[in-house]
C-alpha cells in the first residue's frame, strides 16, 4: 500500500508535469490537435482540471462509503467526462493549467487531513477492491500522468 507522503509527492509531481507539458504544447502550438485517444490536449487538461476538482469534493463521500459499494456502478463515467470537458471548454489553456494546479493544491490539503487508518480502509472502484491510499494514487497520480502523456505526444507510442 502506498503511503500518504507518496500520494502527496505524486500529486506535486502531477502539478510539475502539467506545467511542463503545458509549456511544450504552447511551444508546439498544439493544444487543439485531436490525439489518437480522441481528445485534444486542451480537452485532456479540462478533464484533469475537473477530476482534480472532484478529488477534494467527492473524496469525503468515498471515505464514508461501505467497502463493497462501487462508485462506478451507478455513475456513467463517459457522461461525467463529457460534461466536465464541456463545462470548461471556454477556458484558455493557461487558465486550465492554473485550474489543474489550484485543484491539485486543494486535493493535497485534503489528503494531508486524512487519518492513516482511513487511508488503509478497503473500497471498491471499477470492480477492484483496494485501500483508499492506492485508489488515490491511481486516480490522483497515475490517471493524471496517463492523460498528460497522451496530451504530450501526437502519435500513440
Amino acid at each position, binding site marked *: 500500500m502506498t503511503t500518504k507522503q507518496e500520494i502527496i509527492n505524486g500529486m506535486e*509531481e502531477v502539478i510539475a*508535469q502539467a506545467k511542463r507539458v503545458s509549456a511544450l504544447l504552447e511551444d508546439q502550438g498544439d493544444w487543439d490537435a485531436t490525439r489518437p485517444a480522441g481528445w485534444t490536449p486542451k480537452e485532456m487538461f479540462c478533464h484533469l482540471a475537473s477530476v482534480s476538482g472532484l478529488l477534494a469534493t467527492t473524496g469525503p463521500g468515498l471515505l464514508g462509503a461501505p467497502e463493497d459499494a462501487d462508485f*462506478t456502478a451507478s455513475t456513467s463515467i463517459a457522461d461525467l467526462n463529457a460534461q466536465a470537458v464541456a463545462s470548461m471548454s471556454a477556458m484558455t489553456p493557461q487558465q486550465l493549467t492554473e485550474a489543474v494546479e489550484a485543484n491539485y493544491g486543494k486535493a493535497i490539503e485534503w489528503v494531508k487531513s486524512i487519518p492513516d487508518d482511513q487511508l488503509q480502509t478497503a473500497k471498491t472502484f471499477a470492480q477492484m477492491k483496494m485501500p483508499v491510499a492506492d485508489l488515490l494514487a491511481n486516480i490522483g497520480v*497515475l490517471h493524471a500522468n496517463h492523460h498528460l502523456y497522451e496530451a504530450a505526444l501526437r502519435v500513440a507510442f
Partner: protein
Amino acid sequence: MATKEELLDGLRFVPAQAKRVAGILDRQGDWDSKRSQGWTPKEMFTHVAVTAGMIPAMGPGMIAAPEATELTAGLDIASMNAAAVGSLAEMDTSQIVETLQGNYSKLTDWVKGLSDDQLQGKHTFLSMNLTAADLLMTLTVLHSTHHIYEAQLPVAI
C-alpha cells in the same frame, strides 16, 4: 524544460509505482486479462521494462543526432513493440517487475552521466521539436506511468 533532478525524481517514481501496482495485480490475480487498450497487464509491464532497457542503448545516438533529424524515421514502432513484448513472454510477472527495476536503475545511471548541455539539446521526435530532457521525461516517466495506469484498471476511465 525538465531539469536533470526532475528527471531523476521521475525515474525513481516509475519503479516505485510499478512495484505498487504489481502488488495490486498480484492480489487481484489480474495479470493476464486483456485491457481495453489491447494488452494484458503482463504485456504492459514487459513493454515498460523493455523500453527502459532500450534507452541507454539507443540514447547516445539520440543525443548525438542533429536537431532536425526525425528520431523515429525508419522505425516501425508497432513491430518493435510486438517484438519487445514477445521477448519476455517466458518470464513470470515477478521476473518482469525485477527486470523493470533493473532497467530503470541502469537508465538512471545513464541519465546521471548526461551533461546539462546534452539535456538542453533539441531533437525531433514524432514531428515534435523538444529538448532531450523533455523527450526523456516523456518516454521514460509519462509513457511508463501511462501504461502502469492502464495495467491496473480493468475498465478504461
